[in-house]
């Protein structure tokens, strides 16, 4: 009984702190040393536990390291900087601040560097890159990270001047699927409904749309997607079929010019996963 009462009082106190706004969420306010240690230790332990089983490919190939450099330059420098290179403004205002990756590369094993690049770190500014970059590009970045401690700032500058071109490989075109008209909608999407919610978050869909089964803000920029599987039309223009859903997601400006929904550069396999999940929302 005393335990119940204490638990009740603690909960009330917790809610009071929460709703009073007394906790300052400003990124300009530093963590206490204790909180910093808790967060940092928790982060290392979590990543170590999850990266443990990942098998690491060979990382010493020059072409791999060069491609990794291009991807690093395109995506990582803006927050993390590089030898002799400051991060952009976006990397300076974050809490926690993005690590200097030369130090990180010296201290962390490759599997953990890969894991963080692919899955990101929640509640920090480190995004998940797994939906933007293929596995071989992520490993290329890891290969370059492991090479970077060998570079003096002038070596990095020389690399930057001699290696041109963007990160990445062209998207592979999937084979077309014959005979699709008669199967159920979810099957027709030919995607994985379990990956759908992850894809929907990784393309920021929940920022604008309320989607059942996915935690997010009470978004009202676009219409809610409750019951989307049973709606007759998409965007009020095209019939709601699996192929049209995928077409809408990937090519919406062609379907509805001047729509406020932007082109999010969705890969075909991700659009299929999204459609497969959305068609479970009856």
């Amino acid at each position, binding site marked *: 009984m005393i335990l119940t009462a204490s638990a009740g009082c603690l909960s009330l106190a917790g809610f009071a702190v929460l709703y009073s706004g007394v906790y300052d969420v400003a990124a300009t306010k530093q963590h206490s040393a204790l909180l910093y240690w808790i967060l940092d230790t928790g982060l290392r332990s979590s990543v170590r536990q999850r990266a443990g089983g990942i098998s690491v490919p060979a990382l010493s190939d020059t072409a791999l390291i060069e491609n990794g450099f291009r991807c690093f330059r395109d995506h990582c420098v803006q927050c993390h900087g590089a030898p002799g290179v400051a991060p952009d403004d976006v990397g300076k205002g974050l809490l926690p601040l993005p690590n200097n990756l030369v130090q990180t590369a010296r201290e962390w094993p490759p599997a953990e560097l890969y894991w963080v690049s692919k899955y990101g770190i929640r509640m920090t500014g480190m995004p998940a890159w797994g939906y933007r970059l293929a596995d071989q590009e992520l490993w290329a970045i890891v290969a370059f990270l492991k090479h970077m401690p060998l570079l003096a700032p002038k070596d990095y500058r020389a690399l930057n001047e001699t290696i041109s071109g963007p990160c990445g490989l062209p998207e592979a075109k999937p084979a077309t699927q014959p005979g699709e008209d008669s199967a159920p909608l979810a099957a027709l999407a030919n995607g994985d409904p379990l990956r759908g919610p992850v894809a929907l978050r990784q393309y920021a869909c929940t920022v604008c749309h309320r989607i059942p089964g996915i935690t997010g803000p*009470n978004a009202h920029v676009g219409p809610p997607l409750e019951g989307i599987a049973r709606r007759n*039309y998409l965007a009020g223009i095209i019939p709601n079929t699996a192929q049209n859903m995928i077409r809408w997601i990937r090519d919406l400006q062609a379907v509805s010019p001047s729509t406020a929904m932007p082109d999010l550069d969705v890969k075909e396999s991700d659009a299929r996963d999204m459609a497969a999940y959305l068609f479970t929302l009856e």
Partner: protein
Amino acid sequence: MATLINRRATPLGIVLMVTASSCADPDLHALRSAGADPEAGRVAIEHYDCGVCHTIPGIRGARGLVGPPLDAFSHRVYIAGKFGNRQEILERW
């Protein structure tokens, strides 16, 4: 929709604005001050059978799946994904 004149469009717009949780809304206040009546809007929506295509809270039988649902309409940022959700634009729509 082409037969709607301003007199009816205004209450229609206002009942859509009130299908939401409580918030104070400047458009809603302006509409009420101009004499627009959400009750008349509700009647108009039922009369024009909007619910055949749209699911609308508070409207009898409005469970349509042709167009998008119209719940929390006053919170919506866009009309039809293209136009800012403001009273004069909603009336035109």
